């Protein structure tokens, strides 16, 4: 029989004793999220659209979650909609932004290093007869602003999409300058801020923004879609009155409440936490480069996210590296082709022209300790050396 945890049974707590270094995929839930989730499960299960006492209580919780999220993001509550995930928020941002501007044209301009959710929405747009223009980045993963400015100024551009900072290598993008180019061309800008929200101040000048709660310590299954007043955005979904017509279907309200509570909590301590994690990332960058032979530490060393660092180890199989680290209790992710279902390397590493095999992304979170980082840095050189010995490449 499939195992589901119930009261009185022992839940297998996988990975609790390990060193979890993949916050960029999903951060461990913030304690405030756990508390808010349990409280909202008891009090927020009813449909907030109905007209009875239980529904009004649910509506109050939803309104409070929206108000708290809007305040943290520095926007109006009626500009904030919750979605079923960060991915659905990104899809809605792209397809809704294009639909709302179809009279202006059918061209989507995006950076080459957008999240796959944005690129998949772009492919859908192309399949429906639209077109997409990908703007390159340099070796550090920074947007080519001249190419971007020319692309958004071309005729027929309906929407531009730029990630706030690379989710794979951490390089912060010149969003303010990119937004000025968009404003000059009269093109709305969509910013995927999944790795920035709750960690660093948000850039200005965008019309649409999305985020994902499990990146900041909220539960999985909650996305945020912000559409600024005056933006031409039209839902790409069949009509539905939920969330100002922007998100179809009933929300997971307890998870939304937990996400909003966690966001407020992490935002309150974001500056100090960013400084703490950034110092650890600096240490990882310099130590890996010094102790692992033939390694390429990628991304901008200075203008970067505070919690994320990526490096590639020459002649090492990325999948073997992930498994070897996992056996020692380290959870990391990789952009190497052998770790992807398509057997293609990360499009971000490709766009930067950096080594894609033997790739490791380390991303830190509020529970990450200096001792954990020290242990990782102490064990990594031996892990890489062992794999190179096994592959017979130590003489290369």
């Amino acid at each position: 029989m499939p195992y589901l945890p119930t009261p009185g049974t022992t839940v297998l707590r996988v990975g609790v004793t390990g060193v979890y270094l993949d916050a960029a995929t999903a951060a461990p839930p913030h304690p405030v999220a756990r508390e808010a989730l349990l409280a909202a499960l008891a009090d927020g299960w009813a449909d907030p659209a109905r007209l009875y006492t239980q529904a009004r209580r649910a509506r109050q919780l939803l309104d409070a979650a929206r108000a708290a999220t809007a305040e943290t993001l520095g926007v109006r509550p009626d500009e904030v909609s919750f979605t079923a995930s960060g991915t659905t928020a990104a899809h809605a941002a792209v397809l809704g932004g294009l639909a709302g501007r179809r009279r202006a044209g059918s061209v989507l301009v995006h950076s080459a290093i957008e999240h796959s959710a944005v690129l998949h929405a772009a492919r859908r747009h192309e399949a429906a007869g639209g077109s997409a223009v990908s703007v390159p980045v340099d070796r550090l993963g920074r947007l080519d602003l001249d190419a971007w400015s020319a692309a958004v100024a071309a005729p027929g551009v309906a929407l531009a999409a730029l990630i706030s900072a690379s989710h794979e290598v951490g390089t912060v993008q010149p969003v303010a300058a990119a937004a000025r180019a968009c404003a000059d061309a009269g093109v709305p800008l969509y910013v995927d801020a999944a790795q920035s929200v709750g960690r660093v101040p948000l850039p200005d000048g965008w019309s649409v923004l999305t985020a994902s709660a499990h990146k900041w310590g909220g539960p999985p299954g909650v996305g945020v879609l912000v559409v600024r007043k005056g933006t031409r955005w039209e839902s790409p979904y069949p009509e539905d009155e939920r969330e100002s017509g922007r998100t179809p279907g009933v929300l997971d309200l307890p998870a939304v409440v937990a996400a909003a509570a966690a966001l407020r909590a992490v935002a309150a301590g974001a500056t100090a936490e960013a400084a703490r994690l950034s110092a650890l990332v600096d240490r990882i960058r310099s130590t890996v480069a010094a102790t692992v032979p033939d390694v390429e530490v990628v991304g901008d060393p200075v203008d970067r996210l505070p919690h994320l660092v990526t490096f590639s180890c020459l002649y090492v199989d990325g999948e073997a590296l992930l498994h070897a680290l996992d056996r020692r209790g380290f959870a990391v992710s990789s952009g190497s082709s052998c770790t992807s279902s398509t057997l293609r390397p990360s499009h971000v590493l490709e766009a930067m022209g950096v080594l894609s095999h033997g790739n490791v992304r380390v991303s830190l979170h509020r529970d990450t300790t200096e001792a954990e980082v020290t242990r990782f840095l102490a064990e990594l050189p031996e892990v890489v050396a062992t794999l190179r010995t096994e592959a017979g490449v130590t003489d290369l």
Partner: protein
Amino acid sequence: METVEVLDCRGQRCPLPVIRLARRLPEVAVGTVLRVLADDPAAANDIPAWCRMRGQEFVGPTAVGDTPAYDVRRTT
């Protein structure tokens, strides 16, 4: 016409084509172009990256029949 040697890495997954290239290139004379046949999609990215890291010249991508190929000149 300069000398071109061929290294057949068809059917090999990353990082094997780069490892084979690293092993073979020192065996050819300086100035020789080594043409690496590789159908692994990562080779298109990782062979130029290896050349940059190792100070060898990536001449450019090409093709042999339907197989993608990458020309590398030994410079040192």
